[in-house]
């Protein structure tokens, strides 16, 4: 499976908070290196280095527009963003399933037997 082969490079690419922030910015739309560098107080070469890691991992792609090379999220990058939501959902679902059990055990002493329903 292609996705499984890319997993390692995807996760090392996502391990850095600046790279995650770059993905978050690109999730809002295409941006140039200069536009990406602005909010991070980083030099353009430093941002370019992070972009290279993201490109090598297949999360970001570039387009040629005259002298500009705007970047956007690749399909895998969009999927990574979706996966973030899915993982949070999973952790929450697990929490609330456990809460259901806690609540059920809280109610037990109060439950009336022989209640008409």
């Amino acid at each position, binding site marked *: 499976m292609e996705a499984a082969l890319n997993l390692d490079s995807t996760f090392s690419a996502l391990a850095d908070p600046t790279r*995650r922030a770059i993905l*978050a910015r690109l999730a809002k739309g295409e941006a140039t290196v200069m536009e990406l560098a602005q909010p991070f107080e980083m030099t353009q070469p430093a941002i370019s280095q992070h972009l290279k890691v993201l490109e090598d991992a297949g999360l970001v792609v570039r387009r040629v527009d005259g002298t500009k090379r705007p970047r956007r999220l690749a399909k895998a990058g969009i999927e990574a963003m979706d996966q973030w*939501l899915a993982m949070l959902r999973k952790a929450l679902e697990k*929490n609330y399933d456990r809460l259901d059990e806690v609540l059920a055990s809280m*109610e037990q002493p109060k439950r009336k037997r022989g209640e008409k329903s």
Partner: protein
Amino acid sequence: MSKLTLKTEGDTHIVVTRRFAAPPEAIYRAHTDPKLIQKWLLGPEGWTMPVCINEARPGGNFRYEWTNAKGRGFYVTGEYLELEPYSRIVHVERMYLPDPTPDNHVETRFDAAGTGTLMTMRMTLPDAQTRAAMLATNMERGMEASYARLEGML
């Protein structure tokens, strides 16, 4: 079939809803009583919460510490801003990984729905980048749990 909904809203919000069979009072207690919190607020499998301090009053603090079998751990601290028994809790929290994440402002409502409760949790992060980083953090923890389960199978 899932009782949970999770969606992003605008640039900075995450909204979670969940239905419970129990009434709002019970859900509220489970969110504010440390003995109950320790039983369910554990995230992915394999984590426990050995430290759970919770001062459920406006201005009160809370601190939750999690750990797993590998001895890894992290913690959350927060402050209560508003508490309306048994319908609404407003608090701020941040995670230490070990550096603190930006504050997450959370409003949790418990509305009676039939014989049960509809819970609505609205998180507000300072900006879109923080929200993405928060989602990514949860992904990493989720991945770790998956890897741990995989190790158990091999």
